[in-house]
């Protein structure tokens, strides 16, 4: 008897909770049952994934015509090849009727593979996929659980060794900053794609490990999809208050309690009842401390187009202000080289505002010299709701800045 691995995808047509039951029968056959628990009030279809079977050259040609229509914004998952290979296409809601009419006109058979694709769950799937496809480079570590019980996942990129000096990257600590989780996903794939091809990255990974936490605030992220696009904080209730959540970037043990954070649970910059009160923060603190060999720490936010270094809680310059400033200048110059995107740089407290209990103030005082925070695109036109056509450019240009910082850390051990 071997081992059977069961993976099930469950989709609901309606706005309701999907109950997934996956049973391995006789160790060999997977049976998946999906039931919608709550009655459907309305059906909303956002994006569907269609599996299309062309039966002849005429139909194939019609499909190619469809693919060529840019304004439909189709995502081709499995492209048009021949009559025996189905074509999988993700169709945004606004293009569904056009696509289906086109298919019906040519009498092309199709089925709806996925009726309503949820973004935030799919990042978990992506992480698992990345690990399974690249087991010699990528592994996943669950460093803790969010308040609502979601796993807090960190991807480790390593070419071996034990407790190598490491670089930490995190995105999505403030859930409404969607360009960051998207960029983090791209960074992960880019590392896998360019290791062995990009000399600088390969040299870095031959000496150091990279840890990447993509969805640093998973409860908040889910909430931005389901209820409130502008949600920033965690989702932990505050006793004695009707207001929910703590600002995870004011909850660190650095200048905690001082000016630059709020003591009101209803505030977007509420520091929390105590430092590390949020499990999302504590998980990272524990991980960093037990790792003990972190050399660079970059926390990624949006928006404003800035590259910032400590301190946020005090005007006293960091001991390494000069070096951090010079490195920031190099990094944003490289960032700008791609599309001309202009960044400002400097200490947090000078460049943006006083902020206490911040992530990189803590990491810097732990001895992680190359501690930086990014504020990605844009400068306020779209703000938190950056359009999808800017995600890839943002990720790519930011990567150039990250490489500058990582390369410098790799060459300047301390």
């Amino acid at each position: 008897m071997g081992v059977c691995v069961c993976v099930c995808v469950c989709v609901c047509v309606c706005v309701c909770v999907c109950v997934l039951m996956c049973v391995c029968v006789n160790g060999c056959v997977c049976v998946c049952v999906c039931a919608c628990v709550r009655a459907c009030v309305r059906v909303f279809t956002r994006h569907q994934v269609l599996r299309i079977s062309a039966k002849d050259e005429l139909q194939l040609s019609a499909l190619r015509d469809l693919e060529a229509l840019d304004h439909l914004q189709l995502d081709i998952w499995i492209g048009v090849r021949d009559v025996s290979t189905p074509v999988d296409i993700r169709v945004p809601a606004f293009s569904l009727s056009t696509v289906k009419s086109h298919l019906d006109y040519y009498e092309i058979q199709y089925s709806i593979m996925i009726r309503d694709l949820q973004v935030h769950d799919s990042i978990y799937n992506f992480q698992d996929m990345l690990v399974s496809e690249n087991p010699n480079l990528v592994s996943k570590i669950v460093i803790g659980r969010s308040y609502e019980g979601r796993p807090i996942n960190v991807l480790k990129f390593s070419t071996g060794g034990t407790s190598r000096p490491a670089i930490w990257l995190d995105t999505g600590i403030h859930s409404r900053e969607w360009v960051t989780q998207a960029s983090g996903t791209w960074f992960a794939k880019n590392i896998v794609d360019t290791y062995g091809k990009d000399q600088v990255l390969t040299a870095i990974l031959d000496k150091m490990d990279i840890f990447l936490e993509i969805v640093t605030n998973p409860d908040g992220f889910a909430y931005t999809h389901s209820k409130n696009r502008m949600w920033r904080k965690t989702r932990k209730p505050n006793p004695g208050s009707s207001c929910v959540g703590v600002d995870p970037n004011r909850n660190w043990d650095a200048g905690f309690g001082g000016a630059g954070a709020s003591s009101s649970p209803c505030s977007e910059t509420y520091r929390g009842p105590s430092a590390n009160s949020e499990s999302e923060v504590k998980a990272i603190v524990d991980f960093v401390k037990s790792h003990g060999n972190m050399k660079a720490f970059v926390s990624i936010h949006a928006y404003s187009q800035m590259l910032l270094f400590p301190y946020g809680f005090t005007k006293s310059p960091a001991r390494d202000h000069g070096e951090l400033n010079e490195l920031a200048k190099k990094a944003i110059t490289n960032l700008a080289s791609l599309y001309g995107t202009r960044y400002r740089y400097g200490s947090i407290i000078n460049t943006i505002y006083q902020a206490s209990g911040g992530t990189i103030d803590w990491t810097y005082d732990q001895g992680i010299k190359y501690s930086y925070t990014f504020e990605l695109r844009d400068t306020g036109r779209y703000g938190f709701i950056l359009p999808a056509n800017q995600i890839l450019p943002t990720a790519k240009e930011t990567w150039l800045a990250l490489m500058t910082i990582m390369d410098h850390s790799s060459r300047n051990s301390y």
Partner: protein
Amino acid sequence: MSPALMRVLRVVVLLSAVRGAPLATVTLPPVILEPVPLEPVAPVPVPSEPVRVDSGADQNISIPINTEQQQQQQQQQQQVSLDVDVMLTGELNPNHYPARRAAQVVLHHLNTRYGSPYWWGALRQVHKATAEALGDSGRKYSLEVTLQDQISGTKETCTAEVVFPGGPAGGPPQVTTSYEGKSEINTQAQEEALYNQYNTSQNLLSGHNLPDSYGHVAPGMEPFWHLGGVASSFVMLKESSENTLYNMAQVVSVTQLATENNQLRFNYDVLLHEMVSQEIIHWKLLASWSPQEGVKASQMELLPKCHHCEPPQEH
């Protein structure tokens, strides 16, 4: 999302059973990120001049400045190194937040004067800034800024003065500038066309979530997104202080009312983002516009932050 990225994220997971028992294969769908916008991609504006690196530090300035200024800045820095509550006076670092906040106020002022569905100004760069205390009358900033129309990308440099009134009554900042109006891009034809199109009692316009959660603005609605931004500047101007920095986060809804006195009129429901507190602040306002009169905002009303309320998500 580009097809290239999609290919890159694509995976098919095949599960297999053992010993010839019937296979239950499940294809795991590839992962996606965000949906893509409807309209064709506009290229991200690239500055025509060589990229200028903005300095972020006081002591390490990439642009050569005379040593007298440098000395003055160093002195200032020493004076205020420990006490953040002391407001800086004299020459300010143009890339630090005090100058940037004052400059943002200038842009809100310019939008109230010159904004339209086809002209929406944003701060591009602060070149110079000084601040002085006016005793009881408050504080005055003198600035040289480059502003940019977010729609056409046209840039212009001007000088400005911002007075933040002192005293307990406070009051909105007072702004004067050397800006004389839009120079290059002529939006008159577009404005006339839009005005004529909507100057009707039939089919009054309405829309919501501009942009939507994914940064997508429904086709034909962009001018009303811009108009919302411009009208919001009236609110953001009057709400601004040295401790705030406002941007409009989203138009929640826009509903056209009947034209009155030849002005198109729209009820707007907007979310403003205040950067220092990080709050999302909900305002209602009535915007009126015509190509001749420009944009005016009235009946501005702050809506309370509702902690139990969950605004409808647009899908």
